[in-house]
């Protein structure tokens, strides 16, 4: 539960969301990622560390460089958290619709 909370804190930050979007398109090094932001390099590093700790990003050594990959599986897991709540309302409203359609035909 704690780890999951961390994931949500991770994506609550706009810079980290921007990093995720960037890396989702292509794996890249910390340097290239940082070059895309006005933020100071150590700040970007901190963001990368948080994203890596909660497994939204994965590191991979490629020669002397470390590339950051977007962990789609983890993101999917996060995305699914909203789903049970949405599903609950969707089911409820589907029921409403079904019930009311009966009233419609009675008219």
């Amino acid at each position, binding site marked *: *539960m704690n780890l999951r909370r961390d994931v949500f804190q991770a994506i*609550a930050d*706009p810079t980290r969301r921007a990093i*995720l979007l960037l890396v989702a398109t292509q794996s890249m090094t910390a340097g290239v990622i940082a070059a895309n932001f006005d933020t100071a390099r150590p700040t970007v590093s901190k963001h990368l560390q948080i994203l890596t700790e909660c497994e939204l990003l994965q590191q991979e050594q490629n020669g002397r460089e470390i590339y950051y990959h977007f962990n*789609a599986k983890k993101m999917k897991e996060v995305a699914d958290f909203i789903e049970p*709540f949405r599903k609950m*309302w969707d089911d409820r409203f589907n*029921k409403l619709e079904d019930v009311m359609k009966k009233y*419609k035909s009675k008219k």
Partner: protein
Amino acid sequence: MERKTKIQAEDGRQDLVITREFDLPLDLLFRAYTEPGIIEQWMGTKVLKLENRPHGGYQFETSDGKGNVAFRANGAIHEFVPEKKITRTFEMENAPLGIQLEFLEFEPLSEDTSKLIMQIVYRSAKHREEQLKLPFSYGINMAHDRLEEVAGKLK
């Protein structure tokens, strides 16, 4: 997959917006919220009290199969404009979730379709999270669609 019900939950806010389009004319959608017999059918709850007027109150009760009360909720109605809007509070009894404020807006889309926009305001962003039981995806909507698209390809 068709997603008729949409949830919008922005960053750091203590509210969320639920939107749904119905294959129902506006009057039927509104009746679903105002007639106890109908509410009981789709919400699966007993309506102990429902006063559709400003300063009115309502109370719902749901029992488990054995007749024990599993859930009881109540609230006060502040605004009641037929086929337009209901503003009310909502409180789940004996639950540490706090009282919430609900703004329900009913809109016609066509003769046979209508839309419900429901804004729920919680006491704090934390209460919103608690109510959902699950850590809610703050601000995920912005990044969500694109990331999910990417995730979908990698599945």
